[in-house]
């Protein structure tokens, strides 16, 4: 291999092996050798990868192929016990390329973020509540009415800050949970009209403060949604919260749901200022990205809300994007499959099939007995 290419591969963080069809190591970068110490020109020092290569060579296994591998004590990377091996056909020649991802490391980081978010949420929420309570006692202990109002207003500001902090921590926690590969398994039945109205109602205080009206528009004949009410509620909340940040004062945010080609299309439309190129609109969906408008206006938030919302929608089989038809007209579009998820082929549960077979036999027996009784009495 070209020395420049070799140097490049050695800088890659993930492990990379090039293995011949006979199972011999032709190249390994430094990360790969730390995970699975092996010698060039000799068989790969891992039975599972050797079997993968052997299977692919014999045609029993089609590439690309992915397997999870538990590493033994030979691994030189501290705390790496699980890796994912991707077996690919080499772009040149007949060799195979094996890419190794250190899952333990990824799991460690995502678990650490999740733990941190939970810790901060718990550790901050309790002291904030206690502080609010203490300020309440302070307000009550003051005799002078003017002074009481003044301290009362400070208490209100502290409570609002606490609320904002809790909101941000909730977002961080959601981002960590979703990036951890959390599966959303709930199948709550969500009546769209009620759902839109409830989420708009939840944000009424923020809307009033910003002098903006949230206007839910949905008919009662729409198909329901099936999914996690809690997670979908967070997604819609983020879309509404984002719209509220950029809607001009004394404007309306129309939150509309329609049924279109098997999907529920929910649009959150606000008259936010300016024009944004399509590429930049897509970047709003990337974690920690903030648009220029957000930076200039020093709006709160760190580019977490919309990415979290997009991921939740994607996990429900839908999609979310920002559209802008004309200047000063931003629309967040959420599309979710209407009704229940389509069943996969052959979804009949094995237990159910066994139960059916057993009970059908009993049913036949019951019919035979009934026929015999009828025969003997006639």
């Amino acid at each position, binding site marked *: 291999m070209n020395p420049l290419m070799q140097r490049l591969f050695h800088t890659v963080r993930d492990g990379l092996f090039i293995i011949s069809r006979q199972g011999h190591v032709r190249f390994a970068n430094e990360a790969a050798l730390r995970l699975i110490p092996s010698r060039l020109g000799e068989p790969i020092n891992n039975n599972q990868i050797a079997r993968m290569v052997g299977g692919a060579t014999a045609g029993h296994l089609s590439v690309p192929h992915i397997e999870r591998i538990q590493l033994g004590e030979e691994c030189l990377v501290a705390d790496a016990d699980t890796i994912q091996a991707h077996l690919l056909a080499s772009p040149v020649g007949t060799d195979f390329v094996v890419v190794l991802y250190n899952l333990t490391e990824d799991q460690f980081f995502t678990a650490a973020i999740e733990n941190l978010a939970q810790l901060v949420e718990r550790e901050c929420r309790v002291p904030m509540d206690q502080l609010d309570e203490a300020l309440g006692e302070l307000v009550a202990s003051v005799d002078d009415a003017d002074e009481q109002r003044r301290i009362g207003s400070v208490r209100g500001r502290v409570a609002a800050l606490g609320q904002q902090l809790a909101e941000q921590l909730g977002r961080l926690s959601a981002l960590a949970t979703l990036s951890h590969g959390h599966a959303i398994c709930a*199948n*709550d*039945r969500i009546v769209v009209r009620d759902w839109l109205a409830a989420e708009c109602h939840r944000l009424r205080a923020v809307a009033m403060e910003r002098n903006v009206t949230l206007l839910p528009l949905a008919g009662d004949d729409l*198909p*329901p949604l*099936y999914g996690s009410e809690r997670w979908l509620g967070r997604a819609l909340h983020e879309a509404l919260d984002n719209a509220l940040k950029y809607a001009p004062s004394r404007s309306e945010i129309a939150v509309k749901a329609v*049924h279109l080609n*098997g999907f529920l299309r929910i649009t959150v439309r606000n008259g936010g200022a300016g024009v944004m190129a399509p590429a930049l609109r897509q970047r709003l969906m990337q974690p920690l990205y903030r648009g220029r408008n957000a930076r200039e206006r020093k709006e709160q938030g760190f580019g977490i809300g919309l990415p979290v919302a997009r991921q939740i929608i994607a996990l429900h089989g839908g999609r979310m994007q920002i559209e802008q038809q004309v200047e000063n007209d931003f629309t967040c579009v959420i599309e979710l*499959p*209407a*009704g*229940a*998820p*389509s*069943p996969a082929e*052959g*979804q*009949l*549960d094995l*237990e*159910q099939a066994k*139960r*059916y077979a057993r*009970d*059908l036999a*009993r*049913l*036949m027996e*019951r*019919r035979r007995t009934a026929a015999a009784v009828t025969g003997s009495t006639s």
Partner: protein
Amino acid sequence: MKKIILIVEDQADIRKLIRMTLEFGDYELHEADNGVGGLRMLEGIKPHLMLLDVMMPGELDGFQVCERVKGDARLASTRVVMLTARGQQTDLEAGNRAGADAYLTKPFSPLELIDTVDAMLEQQAAETV
């Protein structure tokens, strides 16, 4: 006269099993794989009983179909048995609101299915006499 049963269920396997079970009885069976299709068939066949899946993809789920059936005076005597994989309290409440006559929670047994269908049809016959 054979009693007419309409099965509205999106999963083909489950539809087949229901049909196989009900073929033990003397029923005229019809099938639809979604709510809209089921509603279209109602007008023509006027079933005595509907076996209606709750969770169906598309425009109408089981509760919405049930609501429409129960809201149509021409189908007042049609019994509706909801088939659900969920059996949650909120589902039972939604089913009651929609006017469902009975519930079968998946995976249900063929014996349970036959017994429920027979009981519902007897009740229906007694009321329409």
